[in-house]
């Protein structure tokens, strides 16, 4: 049966030749390119998809480092009994916490990928806005988790955390973003050095009990407010003013 059927089918194939027309091929090529381009033009990333793509691109090792830093500091806090040491360690941790963000935000400058990103569909400012937002969310989650875990174990008030941790942290972040906006500063080392210098200044303030206690709480709050406004301004500049 097979041989008969095969013969019949072969005969049919010979009787029914299929010729490829060059113009049909060319038309298919032209239409295919057009279909691909049209579809690509329609395709727009939503803001969430864009944020997700940035999340995938960001290196998570720095978040892990921040987490380890908080864990290490949390572990050390339980052995520190004197407020003097706690105060100093808080200031240093705050500065280190922000310094760990620097490599990722400087990545574009370090690897000279500005041209690629400026040629991308999303503008550089949108890319930076997404990255800053992601870092902000991640840091907020880390710090919140840290505070919740240590709640009850440590006798800190919110105001103490505000003055001793959040204030130096916000000032450090402010220094980072201000330096990031400077066109003549190419190296992330400069930002790290500036943060370390601020850390030393803060250390000197924290160790001087006279100075520290002389400053009234409302003054600290005002200073924190000023630092926070400066940080918002620096972030705004990073995102809205054309960089470099």
């Amino acid at each position, binding site marked *: 049966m097979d041989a008969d*059927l095969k013969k*019949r089918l072969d005969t049919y*194939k010979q009787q029914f030749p299929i010729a490829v027309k060059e113009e*049909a091929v060319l038309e*298919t090529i032209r239409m295919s390119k057009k279909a*691909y381009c*049209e*579809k690509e033009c329609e*395709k727009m990333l939503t803001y969430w998809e864009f944020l997700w793509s940035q999340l995938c691109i960001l290196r998570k090792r720095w978040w892990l480092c921040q987490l380890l830093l908080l864990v290490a500091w949390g572990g050390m806090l339980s052995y520190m009994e004197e407020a003097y040491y706690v105060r100093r360690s808080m200031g240093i941790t705050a500065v280190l916490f922000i310094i760990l963000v620097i490599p990722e935000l400087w990545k574009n400058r370090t690897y000279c990928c500005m041209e690629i990103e400026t040629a991308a569909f999303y503008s550089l400012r949108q890319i930076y806005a997404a990255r800053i937002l992601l870092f902000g969310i991640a840091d907020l989650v880390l710090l919140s988790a840290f505070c919740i875990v240590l709640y009850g174990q440590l006798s800190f008030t919110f105001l103490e955390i505000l003055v001793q941790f959040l204030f130096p942290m916000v000032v450090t972040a402010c220094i980072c973003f201000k330096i990031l906006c400077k066109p003549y500063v190419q190296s992330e080392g400069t930002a790290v050095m500036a943060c370390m210098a601020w850390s030393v200044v803060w250390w000197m303030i924290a160790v001087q009990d006279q100075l520290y206690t002389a400053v009234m709480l409302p003054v600290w709050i005002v200073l924190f407010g000023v630092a926070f406004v400066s940080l918002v301004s620096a972030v705004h500049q990073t995102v809205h003013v054309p960089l470099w």
Partner: protein
Amino acid sequence: MDVDFLLLMKMKQGEEDAFDKFIRKYYEEILKYCTYHCFDSEYARDLTQETFLRFFANLSAYQYCGKTKNYLYTIAGNLCKNYYKKKKEDVMDKEGLQAKAGAAADPFAGVLDQMEMQAALAGLSEEFREVLILYYFQELKLKEIAGVLGIGLPLVKYRMRQAKQQLKEFFERRGTWTQI
């Protein structure tokens, strides 16, 4: 590295030559497949073009896993199924084809044999016809057919046996089987 993978990468990057090479590589094969399904050269050309248009419209979402040809066959197969559905609605068309095939003792025997075979293929159920066309006309191996259709090898063999049996029965009913 696989040629298709490189071509797809280049096409995704917008390299125009890659489109050219890719379409030329598969055009004839898909055209043959569509032609043996719908028996109409002009319509087969349209189906082939539509196959490539659908492929390229979804190119950016397509993830290469070494089966680009299978994907093209799947698109073409779906288009051909739509064609058959449309054809079935037009009952007169099929009846007309079979009526033409009935007159076997005509001087234009070649043409009529061709029509008879087309009627026989059209009379097969969809899955049997698919296996038969891929095996005899597209000259794919049974294992490749299993890959294209996404079914197991034993099922391909079963469908092939059934397709041959149905074809034999068709020709026997017409009394043309003994002629060969």
